[in-house]
Each structure stands twice: as C-alpha cells, then as structure tokens.
C-alpha cells in the first residue's frame, strides 16, 4: 500500500511519473519561448541586446541547477513585493513547489535552447537574410518567415536531447518537496524499506519515457527534415 493508504505502490509511482511529465512539459514551454527569444536576439546587430543576452546565458549556465531551485523556492518569494511573496508561499502543497520548479527548469533550459537557436540561425547561409531584405521584408519579418522556420527545423535533434534532459532534471525538484517520480521512489523506499523494488521501478519508468520520446521525435524529425540537408551531426558537446 502507498503512504496515503489508498492504492498500490505502482499507482503511487505512476502518479509521480505524471508529475514529472507535467513539470517537464510546462517548463519546456517556457524554455522554448524564452530560449527562442534570447537566441534570436543574440544574432541581431543590436549590440546592447546581444550583451544582455550573453549576460543572461552566462548567469543561468554557471549556477548549479539545485542552487537555482533553492533560489526560486526560498529567495525569490522574499524579494518580491510582500503580498505576492506570501501568496506564493501559502499555495497548497504540490503547487507551492510545482510553480518554482517549473520556473527554475524553464529558465535553466531556456539558456541551452538559446544556444541551439543561435547556432541554428548562424548555420544558415548569409544569403537567406539578405534575400529577405531584398524581397522588401523588415528585419522582424525576415526572422519570422525566413530564418526562424529553417533554424528550428535544423536544430530539432539537439532540442530533442534538451527535452530528455528537462525530464531527467525535473528530479531535482524533489529537493524543494515536489513528489515527482524520483521523489516518490525515495518516499516508497522510506515507507516500505523495499529499496531495490522502488528504484528499479523508477528506473524502468524513466527508460520507457525516454523510449517514447525518442520514437516520437524520430517521427517528427523525419517529417520536418529540410530536404537536401544531411542531418547535422554536430561536434561532440559536454552535457548532463
């Protein structure tokens, strides 16, 4: 029986998997939006905007994820206006850690997405941007209709691995009390002393999730591949 005494442990872990996915997906939306914006800005000729983008990337790339988790959970509510900080702190249990976890993972991953978007735009031939200008498109229109659609199709494979990273990284949210898959496996082990069963089940669930993502993205990659380009197998990168 699970700690609440209402169902089986399998059910308990599956709910954890749902929380993992709910956290990862919500954070992924933030990561894509912010990452696309920051990555794009860093390719423009606006000097101050490029500097600001670089600063943003350096800050969130050089602080460990767990420390950023603590910043969003413990520090940010204290720095906000008091009413807003209190409102965040008084949210009912899963939400009071879910919201900071989503913000943290979203911003943390947006930096990696920004790097990919920038690399994608820079990999396009210069002629593409110039052709946009020659057609009478404004800078914004060139990005919107010419550069970004191509860039996103090119960087889909690295974005896939960032999406898998965000699923794995969501486990760090257990440190601020979010009972996602890893957190529930640990709780199960503490209640039942079934160490091997708990962690084996969690490991298998992560592997199945990975497999599902790989299959889904492989299908998507085939659909949106730019005809005529060899799938870019970029240089080896450090990662985790």
């Amino acid at each position, binding site marked *: 029986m699970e700690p609440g005494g209402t169902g089986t442990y399998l059910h308990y872990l599956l709910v954890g998997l749902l929380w993992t996915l709910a956290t990862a997906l919500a954070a992924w939306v933030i990561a894509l939006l912010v990452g696309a914006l920051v990555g794009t800005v860093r390719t423009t000729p606006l000097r101050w905007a490029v500097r600001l983008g670089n600063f943003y990337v350096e800050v969130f790339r*050089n*602080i460990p994820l767990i420390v950023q988790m*603590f910043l969003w959970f413990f520090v940010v509510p204290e720095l906000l206006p008091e009413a807003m900080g209190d409102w965040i702190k008084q949210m009912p249990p899963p939400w009071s850690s879910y919201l900071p976890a989503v913000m943290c993972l979203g911003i943390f991953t947006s930096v990696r997405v920004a790097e990919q978007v920038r690399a994608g735009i820079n990999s396009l031939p210069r002629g593409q941007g110039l052709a946009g200008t020659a057609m009478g498109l404004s800078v914004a229109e060139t990005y919107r209709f010419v550069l970004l659609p191509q860039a996103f199709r090119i960087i889909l494979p690295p974005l896939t691995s960032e999406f898998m990273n965000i699923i794995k990284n969501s486990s760090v949210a257990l440190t601020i009390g979010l009972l996602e898959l890893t957190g529930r496996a640990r709780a199960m082990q503490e209640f039942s002393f079934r160490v091997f069963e708990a962690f084996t089940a969690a490991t298998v669930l992560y592997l199945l999730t990975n497999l599902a993502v790989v299959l889904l993205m492989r299908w998507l990659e085939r659909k949106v591949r730019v005809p005529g380009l060899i799938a870019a197998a970029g240089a080896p990168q*450090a990662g985790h």
Partner: protein
Amino acid sequence: MGFDFDVIQRSLGYLFLDGMTFTLTLTALAMVGGIVFGTLLAMMRLSSNAIVSSLAGGYVNLMRSIPLVLVIFWFFFLVPYIGAWIVRADEPIKVGAFHSALITFTMFEAAYYCEIMRAGIQSIPRGQVWSGYALGLDYWQTMASVVLPQAFRNMIPVLLTQTIILFQDTSLVYVISATDFLGAAAKVANRDYRLVEMYSFAAVVYFVISYGLSTLVKRFQDRVAIIR
C-alpha cells in the same frame, strides 16, 4: 524581515575549509576516475567484438537515460551491499557519503566522458592506426602511444567543459546529506534561519568559479589546438 549578511562572514571557515574542500576533492577525483573509466568504455564501444561493444553501449545509454539524482540514490544504497559481497562480509559494510559520492560520480560521469573520448578516437585518421600496426605495435601499444594521446589532445576543451558541469553537479550530493559546499551552506542556513543570504551567497560562489573556469577553458582552447 531584515537581511543579515554577517552570517556569511561568521561561517566562512566552515563553508570553505569543510564544504568547498569536499566539493573540489570530489570533483578532481571523479574527473580522473571518470576519464580513465570513460576512455576504457570508449575503447570497448569501438571494439569489433559485438558483445564487448554492446555491453559498453548499454551501460552508457542506461546512465545517460536516468536522472543523476536517481543514480546517486542507487549507489548510496547499493555500494554497502556490493562492498559486503566483495569482502565477503555478512552485513552491508559502512560507506561514508564521500566515498559513495565518489563512486557514483566516477561511474556516472564516465558515461559522458566515454562519448567525448569516442568522438576523439574517431577523429583520428585510420592511417594512424595502420601505421602503428605497420611498425609492429600491437593494439594496446598503438592505442597508448599513437591514438589516445592525439584523441585526448583534440578533446581537452570538451573534457574540461564536462568537468565544469561535473563541478556543478557535485552539489546534488545534497540529497544524501553530504557536507559539500552547498550542504554546508544549507546547514548554516537552516541553523541560523538565514536561507536567503546563504543560498544567494552559494549561487554567487558557484557562478564565479564556473564562469572563471569556462573563461580559462576558452583561452586554453586556442593554445592547444593542433595546427593542421
């Protein structure tokens, strides 16, 4: 609520002498262990023996598919049993947080170092290997004196970048209550109820070290590049 940044000054000794020493020792030892084991894994993955290469491939893919936090838990609970099995003790042996973390990070980061070293080995032209064999060297001699030194040199910047990530990841030993830099900061934060000050300070320290190291790596990158 007022802020009290004095708490940082009062706990500097504990934070750096205990905490940061733990973090840096763990990073350095796990880096060495991870690169050695990772290079072996890379050689296994490139082996022509299907069993050897799929064994290494399976290990690397498994490690890269599950979260580091889960791996830390796995080893924290497994290592005492494996240790007992090795020394043939009846009871699970006692393993401290440091040794458990060291084994975890060596095994986990090896999977990432393996992929880097594999790319490094594959970047060496085939002719290099053949000329090694033509000179009468065997597989191990060719690897040790022809292929690996070049592969290693090509990959130094990526290996160092991975080590900076390893340095940041060691903060996750928080989940097994080890006293690394973050663990020390968290203990002071909870004891004196100074969470805002201590966690902000921890963020600044991690930022300064990681940023400094990555700037050094960028400079270093230009100097070690092999001129072709």
